């Protein structure tokens, strides 16, 4: 089985570029150039240097001793939370801003839900001196005030998405509309492994530094490159794609995805796309998405704004359909308890998105000698308000 993207941009039956003609010149330009640009020595050198000196990579692979004892297995945390700006998102924005420069673009647009991708984009725009507009749902702007302030400090303009449900899906629509209106000088930095081909593959490749590092770090610590399992939470699926990438074709490595079940899969307030979704087209991509029988896209719900997306990236739809990935979902409550548990056991406050990945231990029992590598995709600073409210701190 092949888990890499095909020449036409598909993972099995998922993927492709279902875009209006207005977007074709830009997306086609990107498609024709992204692999070429990524292979250029000066691009690679600048990308690697920024990841090292600016982001602080490699991120540690940390053996979580007390968590391991509690669940009677060997847990390693891949510490993406220690990256500059506090999450894995910056790996992708560094890559894409360098790509935008190579393509001669002067202006950057992005969408954001929780604000993590917006902050990571505003950060690299400040670094490169480029204009930056971030679209954010009006409701999320109210929910995530500190990240809005960070983006503004970084010089970005935050534009409210006023349409639809006024959250991440609508912010993405607005960013796409902006790109239609500004086809010449603008690059759209998508924040997850979603969107029309080549975005899912490009974002996956920029994030694949995560699994590249896991391989040599695990070799140092365990004497072998391949763990028994890799675990990640999935919103659109960028931290997961990066965590899985170099293990996709290593059959002995189990791939585990954790989605947000919200208040429960059957509660009507959920974001567990693999369980609730059907094949369809969203934001230029054929994938699994939550929709009505009539093909109208429905509103997801999760306590975590970063997992609050009605689709998953096409790679993950393929992993689900082929059975290569094991898919679980964690409720708000399970995630919050798992986040608190990590804080108490290891002294690490995780992002609520990452807390969903940690909830895997409530759903699956691992063997004592299993080596489980879990992507700790972000830190919890941005979520303190949520933790305070939830636990009455």
């Amino acid at each position, binding site marked *: 089985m092949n888990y890499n993207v095909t020449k036409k941009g598909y993972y099995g039956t998922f993927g*492709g*570029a*279902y*875009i*209006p*003609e*207005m977007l*074709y*010149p830009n997306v086609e330009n990107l498609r024709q150039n992204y692999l070429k640009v990524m292979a250029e020595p000066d691009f690679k050198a600048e990308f690697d240097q920024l990841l090292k000196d600016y982001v602080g990579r490699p991120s540690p692979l940390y053996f979580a001793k007390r968590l391991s004892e509690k669940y009677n297995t060997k847990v390693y945390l891949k510490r993406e939370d220690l990256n500059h700006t506090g999450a894995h998102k910056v790996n992708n924005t560094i890559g894409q801003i360098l790509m935008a420069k190579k393509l001669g673009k002067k202006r950057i647009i992005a969408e954001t839900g929780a604000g993590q991708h917006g902050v990571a984009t505003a950060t690299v725009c400040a670094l490169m001196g480029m204009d930056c507009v971030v679209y954010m749902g009006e409701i999320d702007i109210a929910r995530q005030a500190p990240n809005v302030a960070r983006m503004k400090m970084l010089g970005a303009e935050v534009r409210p998405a006023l*349409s*639809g449900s006024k959250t991440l*899906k*609508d912010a993405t*629509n607005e960013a*796409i*509309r902006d790109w*239609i*209106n*500004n*086809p*010449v000088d603008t690059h759209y930095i998508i924040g997850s492994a979603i969107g029309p081909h080549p975005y899912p593959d490009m974002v996956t490749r920029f994030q694949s530094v995560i699994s590249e590092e896991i391989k040599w770090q695990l070799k140092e610590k365990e004497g072998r490159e391949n763990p028994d399992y890799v675990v990640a939470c999935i919103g659109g699926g960028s931290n997961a794609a990066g965590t899985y990438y170099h293990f996709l074709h290593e059959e002995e490595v189990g791939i585990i995805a954790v989605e947000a079940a919200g208040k429960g899969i059957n509660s009507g307030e959920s974001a567990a796309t693999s369980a609730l979704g*059907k*094949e*369809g*087209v*969203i*934001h*230029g991509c054929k994938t699994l998405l939550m*929709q009505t*029988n*009539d*093909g*109208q*896209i429905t509103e997801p719900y999760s306590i975590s704004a970063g997992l609050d997306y009605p689709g998953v990236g096409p790679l993950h739809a393929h992993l689900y359909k082929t059975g290569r990935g094991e898919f679980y979902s964690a409720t708000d409550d399970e995630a919050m308890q798992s986040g608190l548990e990590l804080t108490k056991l290891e002294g690490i406050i995780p992002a609520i998105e990452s807390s969903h990945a940690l909830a895997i231990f409530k759903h699956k029992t691992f063997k004592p000698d299993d080596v489980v590598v879990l992507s700790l995709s972000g830190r919890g600073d941005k979520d303190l308000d949520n933790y305070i409210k939830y636990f009455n701190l």
Partner: protein
Amino acid sequence: MNRINKKMQEDKKLLSLYFTAGYPELNNTVKIIEDLEANGVDMIEIGLPFSDPLADGPTIQNSSTIALKNGMTTNLLFKQLKDIRKTVSIPLIVMGYFNPMLQYGVEDFCKKCSEIGIDGLIMPDLPLAVYQDEYEAIFKKYNLKNIFLITPQTSNERIKQIDEASDAFIYMVSSASVTGSKSGFGDEQTAYFKRIASMQLKNPQIVGFGINNNETFTQATEDAKGAIIGSAFIKHLTENGVDTIKEFVQEIR
């Protein structure tokens, strides 16, 4: 012969109107179509509303949201249009986004359209390559014309491909924008209209996006065969109601 092809042979500039089915009221569909024909409109795009219309500006987004709230569905639209060919003879085109069509089943959707007497489809997010690889045979089987868009950024090479793949007209998007965002045409548009005219394409071109009055209609159709008005008509319906279609059409030409 397909009604669109026949219409394209008429010796005049064509006026085509877009409206969102289910807006302003759920059951306005048939009345709007009949009134448009009665007032001399040449062709109609019936918008099947979608929750996430990527290529549309606020006006059509809003009409789509309300139409869905009113209860519009693919099935209901087909039911409303069941007898439309008893009263209406101008070309009718269904315009929408691909996902609702995909969920209905592409072949079932085409079959239903053909039974009703729909002449063509505009699905902006069904790209040329996918259409040719997977769906062209089905469209042909049901004698449905698939209408493709071009924009000022579309390369000449691709315009030629699209012309080759088309057999009705080419939907010429007037400027780089979503629907309803610009009004009035400048030198850039005029140059683009001339450039396309000089390409001598086999399909006639109909200009859409940014046409909202007699002046822009006249400008757009100087070289092109016709023009499509969408957002301006929706705005008119919002402000003046569905009993004033005559006034709107007379204003345009």
